[in-house]
């Protein structure tokens, strides 16, 4: 480009480039180092940990999966993954159904109190969930859902207004003429929703499934508050319980953490592009 005469702009540009890459590499180290050390720790034996050789030393064997077995077995991770999967399935499909139905009704019908309904959903975005948790707890309790898997499912379904917005945007982009021609063929509102709107919402559904799925998988607060029973642990709460029995056994705790992070990493690598888009859409509504 501008490499003609004087060396100064070139060198300056080169310095700028180097600094750019340095900062990127620096940031990558900051991100990776804590994670890599935990991975290393998870492969160390109890004896090696006791020798106090420092956090950065390599494990004696990279194939020592003993800690993973312990974490998986004694940490009851199988139950945790089962419960998480159960909640994920119902909460995510509920969110998709509810969000798309609400968006369809709001966008395609004129009815009395329509403005009020829209306003209700709008204002609700302003109320952060954490502030109302004490009162929400009483309501969940009064439904008899406390300490059941249904408490988090109902809460995840009921408090996700962002997904309604995502669906609303997409429903709006579906031409009304499609609805109308279906009506001429004798379809009623439910058939139209089921056969035309819902299938056309696929990209929005993908977005909601990803964003919601990650949120539900990682959530700690709600299961911690609403499901204290031991056999109702999800991955967050089960991992949290490692603090007690495994105390200072960092090799086991690290293995547990890696077990929890691994599925996220796999999903992330597989769905990268969708995940970025999902979060951009989810956050900016």
């Amino acid at each position: 480009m501008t490499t003609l005469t004087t060396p100064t702009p070139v060198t300056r540009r080169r310095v700028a480039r180097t600094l750019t890459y340095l900062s990127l590499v620096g940031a990558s180290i900051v991100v990776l180092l804590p994670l890599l050390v935990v991975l290393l720790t998870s492969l160390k034996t109890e004896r090696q940990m006791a020798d106090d050789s420092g956090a950065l030393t390599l494990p004696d064997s990279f194939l020592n999966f003993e800690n993973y077995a312990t974490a998986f077995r004694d940490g009851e991770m199988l139950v945790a993954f089962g419960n998480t999967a159960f909640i994920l399935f119902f909460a995510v499909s509920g969110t998709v159904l509810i969000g798309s139905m609400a968006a369809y009704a709001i966008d395609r019908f004129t009815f009395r109190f329509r403005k009020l309904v829209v306003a209700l959903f709008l204002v609700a975005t302003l109320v952060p969930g954490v502030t109302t948790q004490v009162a929400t707890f009483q309501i969940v309790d009064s439904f008899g859902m406390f300490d059941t898997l249904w408490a988090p499912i109902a809460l995840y379904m009921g408090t996700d207004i962002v997904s309604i917005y995502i669906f609303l945007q997409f429903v709006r982009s579906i031409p009304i003429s499609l609805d109308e021609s279906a009506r001429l063929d004798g379809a009623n509102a439910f058939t139209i929703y089921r056969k035309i709107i819902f299938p056309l919402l696929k990209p929005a559904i993908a977005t909601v499934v990803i964003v919601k799925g990650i949120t539900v998988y990682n959530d700690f607060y709600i299961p911690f508050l609403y499901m204290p029973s031991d056999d109702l642990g999800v991955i967050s709460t089960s991992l949290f319980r490692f603090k007690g029995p495994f105390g200072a056994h960092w090799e086991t705790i690290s293995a547990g953490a890696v077990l929890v992070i691994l599925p996220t990493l796999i999903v992330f690598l597989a769905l990268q592009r969708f995940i970025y888009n999902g979060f951009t859409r989810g956050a900016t509504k």
Partner: protein
Amino acid sequence: MPHTRTTAPSHATEKAARPSTAAPPPPTPRRAPRKVRLWRKLTPWLFLAAPLALLIAFTYAPVANMLAYSFTDWDGVSPELKYTGADNYIEIFTRPELFQVFFVSGYYLAASAVQIAAALYFATILSFNVRFRNLFKGLLFFPYLINGVAIGFVFLYFFQDGGTLDSVLALFGHESDRAWLGTSTSANISLAGVSVWRYMGLNFVLFLGAIQSIPGELYEAAELDGANRWHQFRYIIAPGIRPVLSLSVILSISGSLSVFEIPYIMTGGATGTETFVIQTVKLAFQFNKTGLASAAAVVLLLIILAVTWLQRRLVPDDRVDLV
């Protein structure tokens, strides 16, 4: 947002209902239309029943109850409760140890500033041509997707005596023997650092998306006019992403006020790291002071609403649709 289009669908719904209600012939020619009309009126509500029920049960009812509880001395269990007027509110603002938790938010607020600045920097450089761009993008974003409890443990080990941080410092010849989570200041700074590590990626990806929606010709034109990178940032990127930037500011303020997970997992709120939400959870579920906890929550809600309102006044939403 959904204020447009009010006309088109109405006549369409009329038609829809007709075939489904098989009107019995002559004798009652008038009842059928009424039934049809009722059905037509009902249809949208059938779609909205579940979402509205959930919305009211888990958002509006709690807010209303919370307001009511906040004026009582209820313990959350017993059937008896007394109205105590504004006592709870007075208690919050007069007992310094209850109000103190807001100062902890200061650390997280400062951290948010760092976080937004870093996100802005990385989003800007990664929106130009850089080698391994996707790799860096993925690396910077990934922490946001990690489970909070796992992050808590990763960083407990990081700040552990002889843990990751100490070992790294030892590499550089700095023998440190301090407990990073031992004093209030260093513990809060450490925890706020973890929150930057965790959430920077989200801001980064939002900014990146916004920057990429700015038409490329603008940069070319600017370059022809002799603008350097800083000028491009100052006059093209910054104004172009303003809506997302102001959204991030809002999210980080309300986020700083409602920090829970990381400090709860890592320190349990010890050594002066208790945040507002940890305190509220403890008040309500350990000390059974539902009334007081509700009042605290109302205060938090009002602060967040005020901040949102203020931001809307200061930075009016321009219509730019970035996605």
